[in-house]
């Protein structure tokens, strides 16, 4: 077995172990909270007897071990069960919420990378100059403004005062590119500010450090143009930390950006998670946490593999 395959097998085995621990922990924690979805479902005027009827119909009166066995058996067959509330399967609910979250996450990360990497590279190149100081000021601002404040300000200016873009909602790509992108711009701009700040800072630090290396001095001594030195030598060598921070950003975005989704009323996974937690919709909570865990594991694996491409010195 080649080292890379051994590495992959090790990672898959450790991923399965992590997911199994997550599955058991989440299931137990949900049951140990003593919260009762039946009381929530039955409604405010329901009697104790009605709640008991609902509890029995949901299978919540059974012993925890039996409940876990049924759920885990279904999981092995790809059946995550049905939501306690909606007469829909958990898979259907997640599938409906996946597109908005993916679209928002990708749009945000693309915007952030497009802006942050050039800005960070320039700041690193012009380290200590006015451009660098300005960019670092912008970066501090990006970290400091709460997402919901920026969101409301943008809605007020762009949607209510200028009337350029809609206030809220999400349009599916299947309904046309124009409505899709119109409803995605404001939330993506709002959300990308913090990621732009983060990626720009990391890029600046990595590029400015790379520019002090011997190979940069050699490149300059060879007479290479400065843009080539910055992009091909400094930036390429600074790619590992930048890719790491982009990957982490992407996983954070995919695991639900609750505030942005709420402010712009985007029906994504973040909102689904919050609703499920508030409703104690155990099956949905278990499924989304499992999904998020898988996303983390997968993205981290991809980042590790990307290192091999970006830096030939790295070996597993």
């Amino acid at each position: 077995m080649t080292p890379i395959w051994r590495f992959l097998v090790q990672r898959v085995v450790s991923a399965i172990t992590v997911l199994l621990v997550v599955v058991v922990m989440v299931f137990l924690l949900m049951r140990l909270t003593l919260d009762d979805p039946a009381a929530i479902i039955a409604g405010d005027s329901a009697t104790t007897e009605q709640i008991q009827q609902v509890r029995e119909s949901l299978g919540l009166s059974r012993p925890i071990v039996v409940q876990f066995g049924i759920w885990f058996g279904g999981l092995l067959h790809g059946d995550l069960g049905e939501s306690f509330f909606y007469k829909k399967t958990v898979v259907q609910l997640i599938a409906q919420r996946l597109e908005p979250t993916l679209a928002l996450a990708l749009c945000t990360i693309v915007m952030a990378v497009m802006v942050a990497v050039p800005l960070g590279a320039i700041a690193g190149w012009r380290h200590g100059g006015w451009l660098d100081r300005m960019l670092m000021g912008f970066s501090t601002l990006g970290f400091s403004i709460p997402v919901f404040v920026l969101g409301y300000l943008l809605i007020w200016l762009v949607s209510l005062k200028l009337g350029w873009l809609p206030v809220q909602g999400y349009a599916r790509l299947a309904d046309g590119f124009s409505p899709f992108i119109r409803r995605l711009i404001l939330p993506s701009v709002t959300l990308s500010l913090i990621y732009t700040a983060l990626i720009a800072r990391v890029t600046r630090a990595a590029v400015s450090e790379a520019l002090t290396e011997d190979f940069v001095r050699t490149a300059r001594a060879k007479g290479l143009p400065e843009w080539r030195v910055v992009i091909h030598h400094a930036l390429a060598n600074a790619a590992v930390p930048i890719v790491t921070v982009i990957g982490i950003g992407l996983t954070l975005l995919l695991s639900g950006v609750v505030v942005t989704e709420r402010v712009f009323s985007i029906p994504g996974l973040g909102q689904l998670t919050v609703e499920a937690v508030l409703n104690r919709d155990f099956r949905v909570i278990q499924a989304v946490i499992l999904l998020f865990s898988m996303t983390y594991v997968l993205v981290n694996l991809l980042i590790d593999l990307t290192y091999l491409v970006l830096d030939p010195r790295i070996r597993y």
Partner: protein
Amino acid sequence: MERRRVDFREATGRLRLCVRTTLAFTGLVALCACRPAPQSAPAHADKVLRMVPQSDLEILDPVWTTALITQDHGYMIYDTLFGMDASGRVSPQMVETWDVSADKKIWTFTLRDGLEFHDGLPVTSDDVIASLQRWGQRDTMGRKLMSFVEGWEAVNARTFRLTLKEPYGLVLESFGKPGSNVPFIMPRRVAATPVSKQIDDTTGSGPFVFSKDQWRPGEKVVYLRNAKYRPRAEPASGTSGGKTVKVDRVEWVVIKDAQTAVNALAAGEVDLIEMPAYEQYPALESNAGIQMVEPNPIGAQFSLHFNHLAPPFNKETVRQAAMAALNQPAFLQTQVGIPGRYRTCFSVYPCSTPYFTTTGMDFIARPDVNRARQLLGESGYDGTPVVIMQPTDLAIIAKLPVVAAQLLRDAGFKVDMQSMDWQTLVSRRAKKDAWNIFLTGAGAEQVENPISNNMLSAACDKAFWGWACDAKLETLRDAFARAGDDQARKALAEQIQARAMEIGALVPLGEYVRGTAARRTVTGFVTGYFLVLWNLEKQ
């Protein structure tokens, strides 16, 4: 140095090219984004009414849950035998004629001609009987009615007969009750679903058809006009009268954030917000394009509930001491605070409904902290902390527990106020030893008589949360259910209130009115118990 300057110029030039390309791409996207969205409607544009509902629709079975949003969903797609008009009078809806035998034990009802379900099948007596039987296993008033029922008989496709074991005074009131659980009429095949299971067939015979394939939980709920629906000729009032649909389609747009909902209304992206938060009223009222309407002028009632099983409120005298300390204006001013949107009401029945009375309301009408202290001293209260549950996420009642805590502390109680989300409160409320006080709000349609108001129940384990246990109160409620005339019922309603206050079954904390915010282009609001979407026109 010269070399570096040249390189810098070159690099800057390439950077410019890069920036230009980026700007061109961004401009293209912006152009695409900022040009008006293509109008999908061709020659005939559908009239779409978009409303932000009070919460997301989760459960579709209006018998399975008492959730208000499911009740609203029920009124969209189902019809009822009787409705209740804005003045509280029961009026026929699906029923054309009815009569009652001289001994008041046999009731015969005939349905209107031409009633049809959404699937095109006629509404028959069998459908009605099956629907009422399922509802009667779940609803408080339904179960009371069923305890008097001897049998049902489908005389023919449009006529059915109800035979009672003994006369029951609330037959029509039960069929026409506006609040959950509402006796909606479903096809027999749907009503045959055991009451312990949710239905998933949404076929009704109401003014709208639920578009299940367009339903996206957490995003939107879509209803289409039922072209086959035949409205009654009478004007719409409450849940009765002609339910004429004047739009092609209704969309419930789920917006969880209150400020975003207001922004969407201001921008014209939605036409209505069913229940905006009080905090949003100034912004809404200052917008010339928005109107505030009151589809429910009767309003709703705040109330406080003791746990009768857990110390210290397992003692009647301690409950009375607490009641003497509670002060309606303090609750209303703190929680609502907008003059005209609240009023004191010293009655367990809404102040503008027929059973309103102030009998037995001394504690509530004349709060006196000194009297409360004296009663508490006499009760032998041992300083047991009073656990008050505060639902911080439910803005409409979140401040009430804070006021209750302060008033009780002033009276000498030791208070432990515990903050939690509403769903935790609901879960915890079902546990008999986990709390002492919770506060809530209920619509007038739910509390307007002693039977529909299950908070007045004192049937021990089967009573409302707090498990009040009093045989005398239950006897009076039974007598109310049997009473055959309005005068006798009114007298019994007074006695019920007096007894309920004596034992502290609940503490009414006053009334509040919640408006609906709408674009001025929307007209035709029906006055009643909650917002209904028939009769609404969009200019």
